[in-house]
């Protein structure tokens, strides 16, 4: 187990380094002079020179990279080229909003998707199974940005039941939760379908196992067989899926954050790319990537912890 943990941590580190290298190269391959693009076509020569110095653009590329990587390893992701604020601080200010959005989005998808999948598997080919199947495929097929726009138009503009934009009044938890409802619904909807399909398939497989048949033969109640015996095994692949889904939702969150004008890592990356604010782009992507890798690692370890067969095979 410890060897597995060390191996996974090493792999995660290698992935992060690769991401940093690719990102660094990509940002410098964007056509045009970064200083002119960032400061606008009519920026003064002094401002351009100051920007270039601050960004180390006057240094060779390899040296720029070394400066960045050595600072990043010390937790220093640089400073915002416009406001001079530390990138770490800027990213951390936004990270909480993205995590809250993703947690709520995935949270409601789990609460609805897992029971739906289980029910569909318990009664295969019933009307419930068929409706669940249609709804699952339907929700998977609709992109989250389309859902975002629709729920915004229906619930915020036409019905005015829920707020349309922002993250809520700072310091008011109720208001902040209220502002989470629509974006969380939008990004979580397709995951209801994913989870329901996954749990159904997994449950159907488990329900055909010998130990389930034995449990039934012993006269255990159907609910006990399903929820205490079958579900505990069938849920394991879903945990891995949730881990990957958490990472996938970071990209869905970009759309939701833009459409609902929420602060967050996704909107920060987009705005910074448009402004060619390289330190913020690099810092935010690095944090988002690290977060993704950490979540996937965590879900794998969780599966290993929950499933003795996986644990013993490591």
């Amino acid at each position, binding site marked *: 187990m410890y060897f597995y943990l060390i191996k996974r941590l090493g792999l995660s580190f290698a992935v992060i380094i690769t991401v940093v290298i690719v990102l660094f190269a990509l940002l410098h391959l964007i056509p045009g002079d970064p200083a*002119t693009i960032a400061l606008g076509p009519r920026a003064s020569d002094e401002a351009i020179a100051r920007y270039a110095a601050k960004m180390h653009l006057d240094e060779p590329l390899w040296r720029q990279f070394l400066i960045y990587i050595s600072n990043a390893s010390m937790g220093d992701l640089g400073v915002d080229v416009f406001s001079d604020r530390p990138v770490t601080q800027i990213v951390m200010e936004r990270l909480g909003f993205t995590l809250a959005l993703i947690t*709520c989005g995935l949270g409601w998808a*789990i609460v609805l998707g897992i029971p739906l999948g289980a029910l569909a598997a318990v009664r295969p080919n019933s009307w419930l199974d068929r409706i669940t199947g249609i709804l699952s495929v339907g929700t998977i097929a609709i992109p989250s940005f389309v859902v975002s726009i629709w729920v915004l138009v229906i619930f915020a503009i036409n019905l005015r039941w829920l707020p349309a934009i922002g993250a809520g009044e700072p310091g008011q938890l109720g208001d902040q939760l209220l502002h989470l409802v629509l974006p969380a619904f939008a990004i979580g909807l397709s995951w209801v379908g994913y989870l329901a399909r996954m749990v159904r398939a997994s449950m159907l497989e488990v329900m055909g196992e010998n130990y389930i048949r034995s449990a039934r033969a012993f006269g255990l109640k159907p609910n006990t067989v399903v929820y205490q015996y079958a579900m505990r095994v069938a849920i394991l692949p879903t945990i891995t899926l949730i881990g990957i889904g958490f990472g996938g939702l970071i990209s869905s969150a970009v759309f939701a954050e833009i459409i609902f004008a929420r602060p967050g890592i996704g909107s920060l990356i987009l705005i910074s790319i448009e402004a*060619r604010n390289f330190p913020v782009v690099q810092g935010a992507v690095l944090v988002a990537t690290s977060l993704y890798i950490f979540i996937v690692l965590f879900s794998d370890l969780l599966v290993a912890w929950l499933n003795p067969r996986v644990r013993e095979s490591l």
Partner: protein
Amino acid sequence: MKNYSTTRRNFMASTAAIGALGVMPLLPSAAFAQGSTLRIRQERDHSILDPAYMVGGVDVEAQKQCLPFLSQYTSKDGTFGWQPTYFAKKLEQRDATHIDFELVEGLVWSNGYGSVKASDVKFSFERMKTGDWKGYYDSLDHVEVTGDRTGTIVLKKPFAPFIMNTLCNGPGAILCEKAVKKAGGKFTTKFPAVCGPYIYEQIPGQQATFTANPEWTGPKPDYDTVKALIIKEVKAAELAFEAGELDCTSIGADTLARYTKKMPADSAVSVAGELQYMWMGMNTEHPKLKDPKVRRALQHAVDVDSILAGAYSSTTKKSNGVICPGLLGQRDSTKYYNYDPAKAKALLAEAGVSGLELTLRTLNKQERMLTAQIIQANLAAIGVTLNVLPQDSGPFWEMGQEKKGDTWKDLELWLMRFGTTPDPYEAMQWFVSSQVGIWNWERWTDKEFDKLYDQGIAETDDAKRAAIYKNMQDIMEETGAYVWINHEPETFAHSVKVKINAAPSGELNYRRFERV
């Protein structure tokens, strides 16, 4: 010591509970704030509030609420002018190089920095000469302090646009000398001291809040609090406005067209100004376009009315030059061309040109691309093949500049849009001879044009200035290097209960908003 342990079952139960929390039923009672709070859209966070190093745009909006200015824009019968602000008891142009001012008595800086003095004006304006916005102060020689609250702005040479262009604009902000020096000579997102109806606080990525300044002794604004919500995308802001969560937002051309047909309930649209000028430019030095007859043919071939209808949903004004609506010297019509494909064909035949193939470069934005496609169809009608080359902003803004590479040599046609301030000088400065290879991508020079440019700067008589700038646009058009397209408006949708106040270039001034 208590022993905490986690079982798999407990873990699953806790996870389910946390998930359920995310979807717990909530009441929408706190969603819509009301009262004397104004809610507006702000495109981005304030980056640098220091006038000498600011980015501009929304930074100027914050300065206007928290710092003194000597003059402000006015609009009368569709023409822009200026007037002294509340802060200036007097602001008078004594002669071509001297502007006298007197500050109102009783103005006080926050944070205990005492009263606002003429020496603060001197400090603020003279420090601009070394900042990023020094171009606005090229003509300033010095500020002479003649009393505690009085002084004279002394220019090196006559510069008629100084009040409109500089003092009404962001670079005209007055800072507290003591506070700025104590802050280390410059500042970013926190004013060292304010003197205005509002104090300012920003939560990055969320909102900037302007609340009543308890030390302000001047006229109170209609709104106690202004919440500027950070909304990057104009479409998101438009939806928020329709949801009743914003009292005012800028809107795009397509939404303006939609609102013109059907306005949302209790809403109105206001146009702050139309200080953008767009044209199709031609490189007069390019071998394919060297013959003036070819350029004139292209001028006649482009149907600008179709562009306005097709690309801009008829929401923008047709342009007849670089001087925008409401400014001195705006032309009513073109002088040397109109849409006439037959004449265009005849001119091409006269020039002995056939099978002409050209490339039009444009920013890869929706309206520009539509414009380019309409021009492509127009030119096809006279036998000219047009290739459209959409470009990202990076290479686009560099392509005509000699110091950025050799693209300027291959440049044939392009769609360009510049913004300007409410003085005709600003728009003209990019086309003088010294700008060839910098911003004069058309690459023509004319001694008469340069002479008129200098005259326009020095002339203080409005009628004479207007005549000068009309004459200059005639010269530009005669080169054949321009097809004037449109002036895009800075349009705001707002509640009918709010009377907005915006600079002609679109910066909002919340302190002058009125509750209706």
